[in-house]
């Protein structure tokens, strides 16, 4: 058991180090960091709108950058090892294929976690800077004297916006979504060697995952769908995760209070789905001819 852990750990660590050396991924990360940082300079609205704007841009930057890294990174995980023939040296050792797959996935997840953490820190910095600027502005308005009741209320609102604990919920959900997308891309990479095919298939699943909740609403709840539509929907909901579940992120960003129990429910859903995907990937990879 201990040896299994060490084998998976070694593969994960090697994958993480390797992906950190890939310029494409680092350029993407830089892009995300710059975008998050730059959002500070878009200022033309009331401070409530500006905070909302910062949060939208920041989380979108993390989301999009993460999505690209997850898909491009995962699409290369196994094909690159086959191309370099290092997969043969690894699998000629007493290493199970499923251990190899899990190690590769965890390495990529490590990269995503590192990336989300880094961008979140920058994002937090931007929010803090905004808070400082807004507070200074309010204090300037009072010209060093006592704050009026209105100004006091504004100060409270600034704190409420900048130290919004909901952001942790949003970031957790973004991270979970990325982990799931990476899992799907890894599943496809156990079947194919073409990076383009893997990225494209993952994107298709991602979009279907987003659309299925809408389709469910229209076809089933509004009763407009026929038998065929319902059948397709049932089939799709079996194989494709419901990415619409993560759209709660938008509501959190808009300031809606969401219970942690609901967040944990989505976390549980994501973990179960991920385990199913990785188990399926393991089965496919076990039978794959390399």
């Amino acid at each position: 058991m201990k040896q299994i852990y060490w084998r998976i750990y070694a593969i994960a660590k090697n994958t993480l180090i390797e992906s950190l050396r890939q310029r494409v991924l680092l350029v993407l990360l830089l892009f995300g960091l710059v975008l998050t940082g730059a959002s500070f300079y878009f200022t033309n609205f009331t401070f409530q709108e500006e905070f909302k704007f910062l949060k939208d841009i920041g989380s979108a930057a993390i989301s999009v950058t993460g999505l690209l890294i997850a898909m491009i990174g995962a699409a290369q995980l196994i094909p690159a090892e086959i191309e370099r023939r290092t997969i043969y040296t690894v699998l000629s050792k007493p290493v199970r294929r499923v251990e190899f797959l899990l190690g590769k996935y965890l390495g990529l997840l490590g990269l995503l976690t590192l990336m989300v953490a880094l961008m979140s820190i920058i994002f937090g910095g931007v929010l803090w800077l905004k808070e400082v600027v807004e507070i200074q502005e309010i204090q300037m308005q009072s010209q060093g004297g006592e704050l009026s009741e209105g100004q006091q209320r504004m100060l409270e609102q600034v704190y409420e916006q900048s130290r919004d604990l909901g952001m942790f919920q949003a970031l957790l959900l973004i991270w979970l979504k990325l982990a799931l997308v990476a899992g799907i891309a890894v599943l496809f990479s156990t079947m194919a060697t073409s990076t383009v095919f893997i990225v494209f298939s993952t994107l298709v699943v991602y979009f279907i995952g987003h659309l299925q909740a809408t389709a469910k609403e229209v076809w089933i709840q509004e009763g407009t769908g026929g038998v065929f539509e319902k059948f397709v929907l049932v089939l799709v909901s079996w194989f494709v995760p419901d990415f619409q579940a993560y759209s709660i992120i938008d509501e959190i960003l808009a300031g809606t209070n969401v219970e942690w129990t609901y967040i944990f429910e989505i976390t549980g859903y994501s973990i179960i789905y991920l385990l199913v995907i990785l188990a399926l990937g393991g089965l496919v990879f076990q039978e794959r001819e390399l």
Partner: protein
Amino acid sequence: MTQINNKSAVSVRGLTKRFKLNWRRGWLLALDKLDLEVKPGEIFGLLGPNGSGKSTTMKLLLGILRPTEGEAKIFGEPAGSMKARQNIGFLPENPYFPTFLTGREVLFYYGRLSGLDHIEIKHRSKELLGLVSLEKAADRPLRTYSKGMLQRIGLAQALLHNPDLIFLDEPTAGVDPIGSRQMRDLMLKLKEEGKTIVFSSHLLEQVEEISDRVAILHQGQKLCEGMLDELLQIPDDLEIGLDNVSPEEETKLKELLESSGLGRARLRRPRVSLEQFFIDQVIK
């Protein structure tokens, strides 16, 4: 067909591999009913042109590919099983190890995969870096290694867990004569330690020099298998070796042999191999 021999290092019966081709173009027969026996402690050469099934055979023995038909065992364990792999080291043809790692880091990575702990890896790495003469280059990244050095670090990773059976796929492909000689010497050293080596090569001279037995594959079929002495001997021919013979003595000897009624005698001045000559020149 005889039974699998559980005492052999490698025992193969009726091993067949067909690859499905894309777009309904049918099947490719890569290996056709191969029978093979490798005894413990011998160096076994797999010969054959490109596409003859050498690499396919190795991949089947490692469990990287699954046979369409037939059976293969490694020291009595089913090929590809965890138990069989615990006793195998493998160096693929021209592997590209992560170039950002140093030689020592590569060994550490593969050591972990082989199930060794930190102390064992440290100990074995030191031993193996010495064996493959890479102690000085151990802390340099692999991108600064020559092809011969890469093959040697590749051999070291294959030997980490001290396996009894070593597969080497074209171990000297693309390596210069000196690197190739080093690899050959290493293989002989491993044989002395009691290891079994199965290797494939195009360099027939090298195979001839070090193999105990060989098998020749062509279009997925085994054409022959046996001891080199048996396969290469010309029946009824005899070569006599003499030191310090002058040209006059040579003529006399030829006359003497022919006058004794043994028929026409062929006398030939022996040459060193071009490889030996090259190495002597370069090292000088």
